[in-house]
């Protein structure tokens, strides 16, 4: 990735703080100049007060020597606060922006990236990037100011020493050039190893039941050990090469310092320099060599930041292919007419999942989609929700192409109950209210009654205010499913979408839920995916799918009339009739 675009990206986040940044920069420059004073003062004390005995200089010099550090400390406090303010707000904005970005990403994106990885980038990488964007850049800046000041000072004091110093600086550069690629490669490879390590752990922890029931704890542990001790070598390699580098730097720094000092002393012996000047010169040399040292010290960190920025920008760059069109219209409540017009859809081009799908649903109809697993039922629901865009053909709601409806107004039309019940670790009431945050309590209760969960909730000591999830009460799959049903009911949507909404319910409560739902379904378009034929018998249209195509379509009675019809066969099997006949 190009360095410039990276910088632009960071600057976009920093722009609102340009005043503060300017203040900090000015403060930093003043601080750098202030840092130049003590060596000068010390030089004067040695050359004037001590060697020449001009004792009257002592009091002002001493006052300055005490005052400078105090002023420096106060200014540094202000500078640090300014910096941390900018840095923290930077992270804050990056995280918020990234989170907002992630929430708008299409489902295709979530199929590609694991949630753990996204969380890690949002939390971890943004923190890493912050480190470079504040203290370090400003640090380098102040170092550069120091350095340019120091260059003048050193040349003024002794050009011969200054030349030696330039040789030392060249040594720094050579050391950097020689080592940096090795460090970068080592860093990359061990970060990769760590990704694998944590990926493995996460996978295992998500699959504890399988690990336990197959008794594969030891085997899994051996796999872990393999990765662990494999990465150990890589980490050590990376750290040792960065250690070699920084120790070289230190050696060059101290050795250079030593050469300069003794060369200076030699000049004193020659009589062309005063000792005070040697002391001042070496002090400046330290300042001048500092940027090189600091840069070397953060070389590894720079690599980390570099990689982290890449990873963040990668996510930001990933545009949502599903966005509001320029002329997107806001729709009020839809009547619920859905029309598929030669819809084709594929996840990977070449293997269409939905193929030339045509269907017209009038407002208030209940449509049941059935078919073997993997035939594209859930995909059709995703298309209606516009989690994906159709690849060819058109999908119209109330006669409007779905791609021209603004996403926000579109999504207000739906209530969904999905295969995996998605709940949050807040109270039950808040979970039910998810689609309509301001619903009064009576309606929440009514919705819970429809979903046959009210009675259960009332047995809990805290009732609707019971917290659920990892910190609270654990619910069974069936209970979770019923809460999502209640949520969908409360949302009072124009179109209701139920993907295997009752698969984890026993037939008894399923029946009860269905009866109650009938009232809710009235005057509302509803799409149902189910495997149990009993669930869908009352649907207005039953669509039998196979390999993304419609195989049979019609009401229950119509389909049952087709002799040798697939639906008819399916229905008989499911009712257990064939079993009895065997």
């Amino acid at each position: 990735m190009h360095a410039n675009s990276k910088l632009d990206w960071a600057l976009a986040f920093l722009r609102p703080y340009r005043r503060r940044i300017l203040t900090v920069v000015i403060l930093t420059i003043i601080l750098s100049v202030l840092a130049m004073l003590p060596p000068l003062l010390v030089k004067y004390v040695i050359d004037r007060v001590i060697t020449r005995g001009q004792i009257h200089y002592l009091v002002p010099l001493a006052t300055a020597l005490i005052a400078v550090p105090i002023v420096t400390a106060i200014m540094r406090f202000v500078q640090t606060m300014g910096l941390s303010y900018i840095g923290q707000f930077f992270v804050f904005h990056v995280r918020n922006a990234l989170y907002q970005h992630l929430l708008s990403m299409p489902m295709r994106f979530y199929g590609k990236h694991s949630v753990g990885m996204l969380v890690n980038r949002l939390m971890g990488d943004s923190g890493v990037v912050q480190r470079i964007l504040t203290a370090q850049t400003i640090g380098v800046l102040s170092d550069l100011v120091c350095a340019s000041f120091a260059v003048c000072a050193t040349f003024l004091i002794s050009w011969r020493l200054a030349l030696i110093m330039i040789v030392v600086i060249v040594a720094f550069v050579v050391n950097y050039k020689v080592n940096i690629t090795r460090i970068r490669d080592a860093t990359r490879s061990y970060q990769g190893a760590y990704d694998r390590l944590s990926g493995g752990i996460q996978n295992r922890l998500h699959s504890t039941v399988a690990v336990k029931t197959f008794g594969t704890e030891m085997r899994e542990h051996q796999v872990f050990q393999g990765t662990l001790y494999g990465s150990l070598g890589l980490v050590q390699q990376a750290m040792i090469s960065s250690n070699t580098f920084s120790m070289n730097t230190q050696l060059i720094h101290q050795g250079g310092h030593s050469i300069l000092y003794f060369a200076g002393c030699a000049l004193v012996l020659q009589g062309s320099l005063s000792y005070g000047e040697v002391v001042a010169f070496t002090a400046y040399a330290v300042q001048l060599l500092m940027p090189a040292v600091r840069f070397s010290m953060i070389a590894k960190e720079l690599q980390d930041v570099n990689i982290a920025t890449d990873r963040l920008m990668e996510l930001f760059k990933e545009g949502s292919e599903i966005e509001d069109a320029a002329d997107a219209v806001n729709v009020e409540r839809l009547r619920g007419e859905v029309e598929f017009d030669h819809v084709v859809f594929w996840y990977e081009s070449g293997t269409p999942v939905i193929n030339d799908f045509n269907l017209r649903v009038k407002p208030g109809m209940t449509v049941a989609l059935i078919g073997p697993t993997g035939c594209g039922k859930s995909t059709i629901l995703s298309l209606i929700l516009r989690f994906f865009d159709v690849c060819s053909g058109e999908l119209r709601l109330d006669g409007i192409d779905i791609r021209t409806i603004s996403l926000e107004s579109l999504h207000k039309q739906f209530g969904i109950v999905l295969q995996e019940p998605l709940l949050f670790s807040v109270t039950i009431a808040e979970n039910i209210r998810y689609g309509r945050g301001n619903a009064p309590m009576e309606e929440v209760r009514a919705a819970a009654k429809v979903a046959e969960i009210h009675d259960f909730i009332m047995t809990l000591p805290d009732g609707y205010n019971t917290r659920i999830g990892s910190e609270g009460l654990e619910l069974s799959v069936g209970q979770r499913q019923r809460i999502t049903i209640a949520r969908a009911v409360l949302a009072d949507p124009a179109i209701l979408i139920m993907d295997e909404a009752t698969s984890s319910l026993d037939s008894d409560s399923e029946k009860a839920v269905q009866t109650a739902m009938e009232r809710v379904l009235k005057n509302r378009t509803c799409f149902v995916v189910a495997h149990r034929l009993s669930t869908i018998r009352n649907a207005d249209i039953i669509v039998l799918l196979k390999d993304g195509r419609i195989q049979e379509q019609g009401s229950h009675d119509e389909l049952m009339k087709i002799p040798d019809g697939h639906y008819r066969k399916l229905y008989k099997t499911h009712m257990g009739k064939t079993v009895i006949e065997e």
Partner: protein
Amino acid sequence: MVFRFHNNRNVPYRPPRQHSEDVAGGFNLYWRFVRAYLWPYRWRLLLCMVIVAINGSSVYLMAFYGRYVVDNILLVPVNPRVETPRKPRFDNAPSRPSNRLGKSSQRATEGLSRTLDIDGGYPLKHAPNAGGRLAAIFILHFATLLIINSLARIANRQQITLGQTTAAAMRDDLHRKVLELSLAYHKKHTAGRLLARIMSDVQVVQQNLMITVITLTQSVSAIAVGATILMAAEWRIAVIAFLAAPLYALVWKKSHPGIVEIAREQRHTNSCMYGLLSQKLDAVKAIQAYARQRKEHLIFHRLSSCFLRDALCQQRQSAAVSGLCAIVSAGATMAIFIMGTWMVVNGGMTLGKMLFVYGAAANLFGPVLMLSHVSIVFSSLLVTLQRLVNILDQPVEIRDNDRKHPFPTPLRQGIRLTNITFTYNESEPILRNVSMNIPGGKWVCVMGPSGCGKTTLLYVVSRLYEPTAGQITVDGVPLENLKLTSLRKHLALVPQEAEMFRGTIRENIAYGHVHAQPSQIVAAAKAAEMHDLIMSMPVKYESLVGEKGTDLSGGQRQRLSLARALLTDPDVLLLDDCTSALDADTEHRIQQTLSRIMKGKTALVVSQRVSMAMRCDYIYVLANGRITQAGTHEELLKQPGFYERLHTQQTE
């Protein structure tokens, strides 16, 4: 100065910190980890400590070289207040080796003062053979540098290897322990948090466990050496340096509790953000479908603002502390410098010695600062150690006892549950007094409304949960007396929510039986009605499956998980409604295959389908954790109740 801040931390998705992280037996805890992980490498650690101590004190040696140069080679002139020039005595200084150390050198410098007036501060004369001696000192100085640098290289290398090795050992132990812990523990602790412990907490410990030892050695030795030298060289100046120490202590004592407190709150907020993110991103479908992005963004915004406030607070505190410390140390060093100057001018000290003392005193403050930093690191280290110990000391509920019976095969009397009660988290019992019998070679079905405890029952039978009360026997042998490996080998559970491993489909099916022949794998896949689907994929059995099986539909995952269980050819098969996401056709075919291949084997089946129950020899109906009905299909049909209602609904 007020170091405590009260930010509003009452935001959604941030429950207050639960356990007070007051660490029990602080130093013991630390010692325990040092013993367990560092003790085996004690000699290497000692080597590091010695090197660090030597290098820490080397500053004084370096300062000493400088002093020698100034006082004995350059003979930098000092102008005493008495402006009368004295008789020069050049020859004194070099002739006596003892000059190097001490006061006698003063005479030499004094002697040169006269030259000053001649050439404005540039001495014309120096000690005899000054050039040669300067070169010698330079070589010595450079050699010392080289030695110190290579020693530091060795020490750093050792520290890196040691640190990484101990970290690996800790991760090793933690991972093993986490895998050993029972399912109940895993249900309580989310994967993300455990992952954070193994990866990031260990990293913190690895960095700090060593640093506390090393830094402590470094700063203590530096302080000890520095203070001794300073005292020996010039006690009056040493007193000034020591006076600054209590000021440090005061600053630190005032600020420390506030800093630690806020750091804890901040860490907690941080982990809450992790929790929120993984939960929300997992459920992004629901968020988008209800158009809640804006609200969700607001919630995150509030949580991260909370983090921001605390972070700013913390940085203000530490900036204030380091500012104060800088003022104290700068004030003290400058005071020393001025006092030294005064003493030199008054003839009580040589310039070289003054610079030496000044340098030594300035070097003394660094280690003091370091020491106060170590104590902060130490207290946060203890918090992290406590988190690790919480895992390491968690008793493993389910483990082999001494009996280690093999699993009785073939099963005769079967599995008998007597008065099983299971309570989870001290809440309402999930199973109450459940007694049932699963005879060898028979199929038993458990039915009941959702949330009635069916899954828990399966977990108890497969010894993933330990029952709170009651006993389970397998052919008369108590379940806890069976060897776990043997039990796991003969018993297979197909869970309701299928779990996938990152890898190929082949690897996933062969999970429980790694050395299975390809033909066996194909047979298992066929039995689970998965083969045709796999063959339609581009690379067939080598197709990659993501961690959550994202590319497979719910039904496909269930079938894969069934194939996995069938491949191990278990004696007892436990099915947890594992066909709920399948279409009726496939389900029916799987049922048929199952009844063929599991003929004569024992099975405990949880199902919602009457068609499945009809294939079973005996049916139990569970409601609210109790068995309410039991009997064969025909018997239960005759009684009014859950089963009979179910049957009517599903066959009407």
